[in-house]
């Protein structure tokens, strides 16, 4: 197990450098960041030259990348154009997005898996059909539609929630945005669990467990569910990264100042330091989530062993 973890960690290094280099190049080919900085009028040439030197934009791209990566390892992610260090932006944005992601994941686990188990055990019954249709509806409606609709109904028409989240983004205000963010994945989790449960319900070991006279609850939770969760855990694990990076739409609708908001602003203003910095951290989150998923396999199914 230990050697497996080390091997995986070593594999992360080229992936990390590759992705950051790609992002760095992509941001750099989008045009001249200084040109956007001065708005509709041109910066005077002297100031533009000064700014370029200050942000290191006058050097060749490979040199910029090396300097940047060098700084990253000392914990310096550079300075955004408004004079704030990127680490400061991260310190405000990441806790909010992590909170939102956790809420979304909890919704996925609680609602998604419960519905999946219920429908998987009652295949073909009315409740199964209803949930299947409902998940199909959720999957086919884009997030921004669900988001705007809930915002309009709950926020404006019925006044149950505030249409926008306050800057501190407390948990209670994030519940609805979290549900919106989770909605599509939630539907997938339900369907995955359902299929997996339905398939394993006919497996030999379940029949054995039932024949041994184990209580139904124990059969379902300890034997059936545990073995059926492997694909679901894989999905949820990779979803952590996707939710954090893909929260742009939800964050925009509910005015949440998280990672998505900072990325959007960074791209709009072509602030390479912000964009590359945030994406770098997101890449790390993706890698870590994937590693944890792989390690969880062993916990769920002892037959899976790592050399």
């Amino acid at each position, binding site marked *: 197990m230990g050697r497996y973890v080390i091997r995986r960690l070593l594999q992360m290094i080229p992936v990390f450098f590759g992705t950051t280099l790609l992002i760095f190049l992509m941001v750099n080919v*989008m*045009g*001249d*960041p*200084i*040109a*956007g*900085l*001065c*708005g*509709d*009028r*041109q*910066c*005077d*040439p*002297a*100031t533009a030259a*000064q*700014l370029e030197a*200050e942000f290191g934009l006058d050097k060749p791209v490979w040199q910029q990348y090396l300097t940047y990566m060098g700084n990253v390892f000392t914990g310096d992610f550079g300075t955004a*154009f*408004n*004079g704030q260090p990127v680490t*400061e*932006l991260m310190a*405000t944005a990441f*806790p909010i997005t*992590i*909170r939102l992601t*956790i809420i979304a994941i*909890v919704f996925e686990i609680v609602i998604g898996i419960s519905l999946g188990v219920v429908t998987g055990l009652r295949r073909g019954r009315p409740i199964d059909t209803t949930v299947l249709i409902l998940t199909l509806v959720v999957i086919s409606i884009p997030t921004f539609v669900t988001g705007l609709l809930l*915002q*309009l109904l709950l*926020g*404006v028409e019925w*006044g149950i929630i*505030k*249409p*926008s989240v*306050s*800057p*501190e983004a*407390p*948990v209670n*205000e*994030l519940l609805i945005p979290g549900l919106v963010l989770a909605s599509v994945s939630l539907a997938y989790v339900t369907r995955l669990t359902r299929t997996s449960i339905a398939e394993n319900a006919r497996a030999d070991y379940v029949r054995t467990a039932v024949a041994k006279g184990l209580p139904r609850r124990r059969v379902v939770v300890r034997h059936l569910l545990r073995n059926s969760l492997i694909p679901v855990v894989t999905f949820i694990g990779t979803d952590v990264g996707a939710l954090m990076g893909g929260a742009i739409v939800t*964050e*925009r*609708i*509910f*005015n949440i*100042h998280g990672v998505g908001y*900072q990325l*959007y*602003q960074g791209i*709009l*203003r*072509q602030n390479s330091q912000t964009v590359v910095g945030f994406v770098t951290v997101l890449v790390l989150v993706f890698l870590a989530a994937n590693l944890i998923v792989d390690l969880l396999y062993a*916990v769920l199914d002892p037959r899976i062993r790592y050399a």
Partner: protein
Amino acid sequence: MRGATQARWAACAVAVALTATACGGGDSDSGGGGADGIVSSSWGDPQNPLEPANTNEVQGGKVLDMVFRGLKRYDPKTGEATDMLAEKIETTDSQNFTITIKDGWTFSNGEKITSKSFVDAWNYGAALKNNQKNAYFFQYIDGYDKVHPESGTASAAALAGLKIVNDRTFTAKLSQKFSLWPDTLGYPAFAPLPQQFFTDHDAWLSKPVGNGPYTIDKYAKGSSMNLRKWDEYPGDDKAQNGGIDLKVYTDNNTAYTDLTAGNLDLVDDVPASQLKNVKADLGDRYINTPAGIIQTLAFPFYEKAWDTPDGAKVRQGLSMAINRVQITDQIFQKTRTPASDWTSPVLGADGGFKEGLCGKECTYDKTAAKKLIEEGGGIPGGQLKISYNADTGSHKEWVDAVCNSINNVMGDNKACVGGPVGTFADFRSQVSQQKLSGAWRAGWQMDYPLIQNFLQPVYYTNAPSNDGKWSDQKFDDLVDQANAETDKAKAVSTFQDAEKILVQQMPVIPLWYQNGSAGYSDRVSNVALNSFSVPVYEEIKVK
């Protein structure tokens, strides 16, 4: 053993969840409209650090307008420059000015405002090493080319043209005659700065201290700013409310939704998609008034094909081929007014706005348009491509409409096409590096309500915002002549003579004047926009 492993995983997950959520306790009341006469208002994240000479966009400008007062102030209603901190500004030759400051003004930290507060601030703003984006505002002061050379390093640390006479008087020598110069001093870049700005810059940036009717109580960068009324403010434009809570919105649609849900008092940018509903939602709590912004189509004069005598005819023809009335009605829902000169209605007749100055060259006329374009040899390259940035501001819709209008006139579906560019930064870099060979969307937002500001920075030879590199000796001469006039009315009419050259040459096609739009809740009253389309915050009353 296996059970223990599971328990550990569960404990781990719970711990992660707790640490991440524990910090989210904060009070949830701070977001909405509060009590005690506090007005909550929408805001956007300022693009640059909040320094007077470094703020060149509306969002940062809003704050400066609340926390700073300069020598002059533009009347919120008429846009006219009136004395604020200045007791008098005197000159005999339009080039050497003596400025006297009123007694009794202080910064909100108690520091007295003296000539030094101004001279230090201006020297800071002009110096190349400070990277101030508005440095060019000081270009008329003698010695600017020494502290801010076009390339290389500065050879002087301070502007030679500024001299402190005593605590309340200083003199300014300009490098050329400029009779309207005192009227430019209402721009925030000319604000005085307290000593803390120079001695502890970082602390000042995290909580700017000024001398305006409001002080900054709390500033959370990127998300909100709470401004409170400054009770000892010495000016006569004291705040009529207890304070302003500015709240950053990532999307103006959300701000508008918050307003309709009663969660916000003031939105100063009604999203285009809501213009259809705004009457039903807000009734007469919707404001739509002219602002000092004009939008235009610019051409590349660095391209031979456009810089010909016949080219002027083609541009005039194109101008006449655009149905401005129809586009402003249907696409902009009358939040734009068809342009008929190169200034803005906010200047007023005395200030140099002249409706219809452009005449028939800016009026839709199908047959005359086609005739002119054909006389001029047709559109260079056979097709007009209008470049615009597609990321913000729904430019695609109107560019397509303009092209439709031109295509209709030419009877050719391919006579004009839109050329979207991904981001604003990329668009600007293509414009400034002269990579565009067709037309592009351009525009001008005034810095101060003067006709000079609408003409000189944009059309004078090699002026900083003359992106198309248009040049005309007669125009330049008239501008120089107008600047040297000591009589304001004479100066304005000379500027208008210069504008008439724009009619003949059509270096850019004027499209429409932009309005400022705002909406407010029934909790507040007396809401208005000034000529920069910024709400007049200090006059807002809370019911």
